[in-house]
């Protein structure tokens, strides 16, 4: 395994535990993502993937462990992380156009009582260009297709020019051409030094895009390259025979 050196990590999660309503959802989670790395966080529904993302954003308190984002706590790093939520979290019938929606990613940077500066507009232009939405920048968001909507959310995150990009199920419900556009974009971003962590329950898609996969089920049960995780033996070790067969099937390792 070619693990990056710890000092190169943009995101360093060590021994993290999270409780939701008194129930332990995550424990002893160790994850690190270095610059230029694209890590897929894989696990069945209810494994705690979204919970982990929400802790990284500082939306949920951790009960033990350490989260470091460029050496800062989630509270200190607040507002600097690029976050792409699931598409249904967004109010698509709100009457704004694509450019305005992308600009809302910078509202907290622009500050109270201020209008977007030249720098803010340049960041939005750049983000729109990256996701190939320049031609549609005046279109109301309610008229966009599912793939275009996903690209708006990615652009909104990129408008912060983040060093760490968190994506929650970015490929779910997208057609193959849109998946390819996004995959190409993620490759460009990582080659420029961005660290990407994305959740998914689609192992084949993740194996195509990610440089490393992290298998999460309340804790990290396996961590390696896609090839390493293709081996059913890892799954047997992690979950035992009965459970792993079901998981391998839902995650698409075996059909």
């Amino acid at each position: 395994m070619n693990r990056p050196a710890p000092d190169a990590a943009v995101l360093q999660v060590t021994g993290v535990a999270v409780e939701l309503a008194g129930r332990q959802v995550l424990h002893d989670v160790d994850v690190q993502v270095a610059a230029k790395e694209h890590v897929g966080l894989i696990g069945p529904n209810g494994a705690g993937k979204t919970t982990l993302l929400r802790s990284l954003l500082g939306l949920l308190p951790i009960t033990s462990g350490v989260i470091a984002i460029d050496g800062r706590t989630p509270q200190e790093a607040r507002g600097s992380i690029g976050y792409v939520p699931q598409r249904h979290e967004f109010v698509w019938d709100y009457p704004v156009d694509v450019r305005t929606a992308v600009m809302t990613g910078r509202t907290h940077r622009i500050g109270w009582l201020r209008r977007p500066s030249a720098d803010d507009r340049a960041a939005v232009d750049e983000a729109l260009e990256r996701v190939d939405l320049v031609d549609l920048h005046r279109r109301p968001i309610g008229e966009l297709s599912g793939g275009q909507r996903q690209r708006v959310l990615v652009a909104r995150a990129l408008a912060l020019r983040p060093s760490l990009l968190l994506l929650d199920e970015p490929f779910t419900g997208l057609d193959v051409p849109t998946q390819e556009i996004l995959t190409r974009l993620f490759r460009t971003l990582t080659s420029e030094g961005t660290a990407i962590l994305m959740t998914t329950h689609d192992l084949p898609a993740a194996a195509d895009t990610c440089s490393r996969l992290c298998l999460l089920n309340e804790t990290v049960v396996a961590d390696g390259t896609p090839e390493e995780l293709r081996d059913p033996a890892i799954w047997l070790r992690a979950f035992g025979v009965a459970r792993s067969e079901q998981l391998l099937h839902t995650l698409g390792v075996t059909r």
Partner: protein
Amino acid sequence: MIEFFIEPWQHVFMQRAFLVVLMSGVICGVIGSHVALRGMAFIGDAVAHAVFPGIAIAFVLQTSLVVGGIVAGLITAFSIAVVSQNRRLKEDTVIGVFFAGAFGLGIVVMSTAPGYGGSLESFLFGSVLGIGNRDVVTVAVAGAVLLLVSAALHKEFVTVGLDRETARSVGLPIFWLDMALYAMVTIAIVISIQAVGNILVLALLITPAACARLLTDRIGAMMLIAPLIGAFSGLTGLYLSYAFNLAAGGLIVLTATTVFIACWVFAPRHGLLSHRRSSAAAAVVPA
């Protein structure tokens, strides 16, 4: 014909009435756009009822009705926001508890005042012809403040309206922005109660905004169209009321409702007819 338009303006009480319905229409159009987009209509209803005990107490104590209403509305809005932090109760349940309670309190307080029947009626149904000079000034000042705050917080309201969780994650103060919006809704309602009355004020807040949403896909345009429709409804309703000697508040709201029905049928992109046409066109194209 010209006579019809000019005559009402010769009375001072009509001049005040025109000014107040114009300003109420504009203010409610702007604030109501946020209310409609956030799906907060029920909160508007709650606040409209909740200002009642404040106005009743102010009436009994012979102080400013506007101030009394605003204080009571704000207390209720804050209580709703705080109590609904308890996840066991849904927000609309909490709202239901508070606004009925507040209205009950208002009726009890009002009944302690001798001869309360008349003032209760003017409160419930509006008394636009009995507005004093000081009320006109109050509405103008409060309205100007509301429009300024609404412009100042516009991009934050849009950001939170689009995606609450992400707005929270970047550190925007969601709770206080909600509070600010509730407070603005409260003030808009209180200053409009004199025009259309407590029961109908929700229509002045929601209906012009709903019309504007049918006519445009841009929030900036919505913030212009809704106040225009609000002001138009106010003026038209008042003219009709003067001409036919009918209740002003009811006619103002009926005018707005008529505009809404027209928008619903004829709106260029989202209206009933345009949907018919586009689906008819879609049926023809493959043939």
